[in-house]
């Protein structure tokens, strides 16, 4: 008998075969053959061993080691490592799921725990095609009670007392509707169920019909008894074949059991019903159009009065109720109106089912008591917005409704409050929208829908929706005009008042709602041709370029990287950005947040590619520009805004002098951002290039002290104030004046001014340092403190997801060993001998939402604790230091300590000689925003000068034409963003060497190939 040293059992079961075990087997046999191992090692194909979802599976005997998820490409390594070298291949090893992993109960999952099921009480628990299972859960018991123990008047009273309001959207009291119909005298009356559910995004009714059809039937029988009807129809849209199928089965089973039809439950009461299929018209969800449709005519509404309760289907008294409304009725009869009214708000009783969908983690059906907060539904039940995006608005009520924006997350969802906010409850569709959705486009979408579905009978709707859609479409294409918003509002008013039915009357709602909350977006589309969500693509080349504050031509320089023309790529960068090296390292890359590739796998590493270009291509040589203009311009502040303005003006032939109070220029780039993020020589080269143009840089010169404003005004024609925001905000706790308590920016400035002393240990923070704050400054201060030898903990008062700092920065800090504690706020600082010795803090919990959509931290009583520290760095925000501004200049400083601009030109102050920009105007913002401000100021100053001289406007010299190749791949294979190699975690915190190491050539080109070329126009 042949003896083998090893047996390889490969699963050949159905599951593993469908995962590719045959290919693995082939690869295995081939590899063993290649290595001449077939005499020693036997491959056996076995039956299924049960791990079907982890296949293909291989068990190696005699060890009994299990390898899972095998691919043919894994085989050579597996054979080499395990069979030849005898080493287990860890990465393919089967890992027993941790036995300590606790399975949560349904009640521990907020999605389920926070719901209150009444309409959906049977969900997941019964087979809808078995009437017995419905009966077993109290089905038809309410009907039995209504038919045998109650009079029609009593039934109506019970409905009135319950407070149930129509769940189709209008919210009319159901009991009242039934009362009117009951009071109408007629031998024939009809009970109708509206199962048309036309709202885009709504699927509650479909779910009820598919999962629990008998609940609807039971409700209709009770309604029939209440008003005196013997015939009913369920109007169900034909697009719901499963619902129709299950309804028909339910009707047949109910009839067979004597629960529908003649002599129900032997009480002598007759009620029969059929299903009538809708034919695909949204308008047929409207009461009178629905009835017209059942009558066999084209679904068009009729004027009311007469109301259906008086003259409805075939002119007979009829009631039309929504599926969800009817599903409540049986339980109201069984358990009583008091039970039903025990939850909800004063005017909105009971529960509401929402179809939660859109940009939310848990898409599904949510039933909550009326009055539940919107934020609870979106965040606690819905699980929040995926992919770290921000919440923008929730659309309620579909094409008839409106949106509720982030500042109203605390709003209670009930009929009155929702109407107050400009939306309607609607049938229950709740579409969550994140920051990547455009408000104008959303309004256009719903108007498009309404215009399409308009039956055409009345002029206001037929013509009005068409014209409104026209206007909205033009706005999204950048063809909007001043006055368009007002025209939309005017038309909306007319259509709302004059349209014949609910479709027309509510079609303008999404437009009015978005104008109410997002008017700025409409104005940006019309006046600036800007879509901040980067959706309205007719207005821009590519979303990345459109989102960049200085509109860098991203697709072009990425295409040039792909084509290995790095020098040309550098030229493209410099067309808009004087600091591409800097931005390639520290930009907050909003462009990447709108990169379309993110919808496929991950965004392109635009920032890293920009850095690659500047690191690997020779920088174009700078020649001095001759001074051809007589006006002299002073720039106060040598940061990115000031230097950009100086450069632009120098390029136009002006003589520019930059005054900087500190010994080195760069502003926050030098004094705020540490060198392990932005190496000094990189920054120096880019500042040098500006100097080479002919800009004079006067360091160590403080305006207002070394040189008065009066002298400045005498020597210069125009002055640009770009003095930044670098005074740390105080925490406002006692003990803040103690020694070794620093502001974040002040600490970083001190470090940069005395780097030698800090690195030698002559200056030190001490062993334990606490950093308060969650922005980039806090992270910078923390990582510097770590590098000068301290043990650092960051204390932040909210959650990680709320921290303004860039995610990559937070991660880098954690990897270096910095601890971050959340939900902690400082109370007071204690000291000894004039220096800080400890800080007392308080734990926070999260309360209601604030206007920014974040939950407000609320102090937890009796949760104070004390941390021993040797130094505290408070980096909770910066404000400009305006103490140096001479009031006689007339330059206004507002209540936020920022310059007021916008007088005539975007960047001009109240004094026409003074312009201002950067952090000193906006408050702390990004480098790229400051560069944008610098460009704006140069444009404004130059324009002001030319206008004053009567000269024609500035004409930009023709750009060098750089041919950008257009290569679009037939197919894009999914691949994550190229990973940026970094210095090892342990070594890097010992020095200030740059942590990110940059792409190599091969990786950069690979990454550039992932670009989908959204700018392509064929």
């Amino acid at each position, binding site marked *: 008998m042949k003896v083998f040293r090893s047996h390889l059992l490969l699963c050949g*079961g*159905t*599951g593993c075969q*469908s*995962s590719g075990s045959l290919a693995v087997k082939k690869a295995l046999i081939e590899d063993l053959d290649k290595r001449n191992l077939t005499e020693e090692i036997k491959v056996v194909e076995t039956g*299924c061993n*049960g*791990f*079907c*979802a982890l296949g293909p599976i291989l068990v190696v005997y005699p060890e009994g080691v299990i390898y899972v998820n095998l691919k043919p490409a894994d085989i050579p390594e597996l054979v080499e490592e395990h069979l030849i070298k005898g080493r287990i291949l860890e990465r393919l090893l089967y890992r027993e*799921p*941790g036995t300590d*992993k606790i*399975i*949560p*109960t*349904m*009640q*521990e*999952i907020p*999605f*389920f725990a926070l*719901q*209150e*099921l009444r309409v*959906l*009480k049977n*969900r*997941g*628990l019964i*087979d*809808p*095609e078995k009437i*017995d*299972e419905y*009966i*077993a859960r109290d089905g*038809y018991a309410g009907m*039995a009670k209504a038919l*045998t123990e109650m009079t029609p008047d009593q039934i109506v009273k019970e409905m009135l007392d319950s407070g149930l309001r129509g769940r189709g959207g209008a919210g009319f009291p159901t009991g009242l509707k039934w009362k009117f119909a009951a009071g109408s005298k007629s031998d024939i009356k009809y009970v109708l169920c509206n199962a048309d559910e036309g709202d885009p995004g709504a*699927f509650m009714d*479909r*779910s009820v019909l*598919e*999962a*629990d059809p008998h609940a609807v039937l039971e409700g209709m029988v009770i309604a029939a008894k209440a008003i005196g009807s013997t015939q009913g129809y369920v109007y169900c849209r034909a697009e*719901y074949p*499963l619902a129709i199928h299950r309804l028909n089965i339910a009707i047949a*089973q109910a009839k*067979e*059991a*004597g629960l529908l039809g003649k*002599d129900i*439950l*032997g009480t002598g009461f007759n009620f029969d019903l059929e299903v009538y299929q809708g034919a695909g018209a949204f308008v047929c969800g409207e009461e009178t159009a629905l009835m017209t449709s059942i009558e066999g005519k084209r679904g068009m509404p009729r004027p009311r009065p007469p109301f259906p309760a008086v003259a409805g289907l075939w002119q007979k008294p009829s009631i039309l109720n929504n599926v969800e409304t009817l599903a409540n009725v049986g339980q109201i009869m069984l358990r009583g109106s008091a039970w039903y009214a025990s939850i909800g708000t004063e005017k909105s009783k009971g529960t509401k089912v929402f179809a939660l969908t859109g940009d939310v983690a*848990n*898409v*599904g*059906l*949510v039933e909550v008591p009326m009055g539940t907060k919107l934020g609870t539904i979106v965040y606690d039940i819905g699980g929040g917005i995926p992919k770290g995006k921000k919440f923008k608005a929730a659309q309620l009520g579909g094409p008839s409704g409106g949106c509720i924006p982030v500042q109203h997350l605390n709003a209670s969802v009930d009929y009155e409050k929702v109407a107050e906010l400009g939306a309607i409850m609607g049938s229950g569709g709740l579409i969550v929208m994140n920051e990547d959705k455009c408000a104008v486009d959303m309004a256009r979408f719903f108007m498009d829908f309404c215009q399409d579905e308009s039956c055409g009978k009345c002029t206001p709707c037929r013509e009005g929706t068409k014209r409104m859609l026209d206007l909205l479409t033009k706005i999204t294409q950048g063809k909007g005009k001043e006055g368009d918003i007002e025209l939309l509002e005017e038309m909306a008013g007319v259509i709302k008042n004059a349209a014949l039915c609910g479709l027309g009357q509510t079609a303008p709602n999404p437009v009015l709602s978005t104008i109410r909350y997002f008017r700025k977006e409409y104005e940006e589309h019309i006046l600036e041709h800007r879509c901040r969500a980067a959706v309205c693509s007719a207005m821009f080349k590519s979303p990345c370029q459109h989102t960049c504050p200085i509109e860098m031509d991203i697709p072009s320089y990425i295409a040039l990287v792909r084509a290995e023309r790095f020098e040309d790529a550098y030229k493209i960068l410099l067309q808009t950005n004087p600091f591409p090296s800097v931005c390639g390292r520290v930009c907050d890359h909003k462009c990447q947040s709108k990169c379309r590739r993110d919808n496929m796998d991950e965004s392109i590493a635009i920032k890293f590619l920009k850095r690659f270009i500047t690191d690997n291509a020779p920088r174009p040589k700078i020649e001095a520009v001759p001074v051809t203009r007589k006006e002299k311009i002073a720039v106060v502040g040598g940061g990115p805004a000031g230097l950009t303005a100086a450069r632009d003006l120098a390029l136009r032939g002006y003589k520019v002098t930059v005054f900087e109070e500190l010994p080195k220029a760069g502003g926050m780039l030098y004094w705020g951002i540490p060198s392990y993020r932005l190496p000094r020589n990189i920054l120096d080269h880019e500042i040098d290039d500006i100097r080479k143009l002919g800009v004079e840089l006067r360091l160590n010169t403080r305006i207002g002290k070394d040189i008065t404003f009066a002298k400045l005004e005498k020597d210069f024609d125009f002055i640009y104030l770009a003095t930044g925001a670098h005074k740390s905000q105080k925490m406002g706790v006692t003990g803040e004046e103690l020694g070794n308590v620093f502001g974040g920016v002040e600490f970083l400035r001190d470090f940069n001014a005395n780097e030698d002393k800090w690195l030698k240990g002559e200056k030190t923070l001490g062993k334990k340092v606490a950093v308060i704050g969650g922005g980039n400054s806090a992270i910078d201060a923390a990582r510097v403190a770590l590098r000068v030898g301290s043990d650092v903990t960051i204390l932040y008062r909210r959650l990680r997801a709320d921290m303004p700092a860039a995610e990559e920065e937070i991660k880098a800090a954690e990897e270096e060993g910095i601890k971050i504690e959340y939900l902690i706020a400082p109370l007071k600082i204690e000291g000894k001998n004039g220096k800080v010795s400890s800080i007392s803090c308080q734990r926070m919990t999260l309360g209601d939402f604030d206007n920014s959509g974040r939950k407000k931290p609320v102090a937890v009583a009796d949760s104070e604790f004390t941390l021993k520290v040797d130094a505290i760095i408070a980096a909770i925000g910066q404000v400009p230091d305006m103490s140096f501004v001479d009031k006689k200049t007339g330059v206004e400083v507002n209540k936020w300590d920022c310059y007021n601009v916008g007088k005539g030109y975007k960047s001009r102050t109240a004094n026409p000689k003074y312009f201002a920009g950067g952090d000193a105007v906006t408050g702390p913002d990004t480098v790229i925003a400051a560069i944008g401000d610098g460009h704006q100021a140069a444009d404004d100053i130059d324009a002001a000068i030319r206008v004053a001289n009567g000269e024609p406007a500035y004409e930009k010299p023709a750009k060098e034409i750089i041919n950008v190749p257009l290569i679009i791949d037939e197919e894009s294979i999914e691949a994550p963003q190229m990973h940026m190699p970094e210095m090892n975690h342990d070594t890097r915190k010992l020095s200030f060497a740059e942590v990110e190491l940059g792409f190599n050539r091969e990786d950069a080109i690979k990454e550039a190939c992932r670009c989908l070329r959204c700018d392509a126009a064929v």
Partner: protein
Amino acid sequence: MAKLTIADLKKIKEKVHKEMSLRDGDRRVKVTVHMGTCGIASGAKEVMDTLLQEIETAGANDVIVTTSGCMGLCSREPLVTVEVLNQAPIKYEYINPNKMRQIFKKHILAGEIQTPFVLAKGSEVNK
């Protein structure tokens, strides 16, 4: 079914409760494949077919299979609930045919809950 009276409604309720709670001797496991449109669109039919096939191949006579409509968390469909006699029901999420096979062999037959695929245990409480 003959025409029912009110008394009949109560009797059916008791009878079905007994059946549905698995106290009857030859029913050990109840599996519910949730088949609303959300489930079907995500592949619940294939999951159902796989389950029935595995039951047949294994000759498992003590396993009953039933369906229901949508159970609420549409984004995690296909969802399958496995209820073993005297144990809390286990809800599995994102199920495909291979996972169904594994759950059948390892949980339903061998009693080992397949934790990586579990959403939760227990039921929604109806107040």
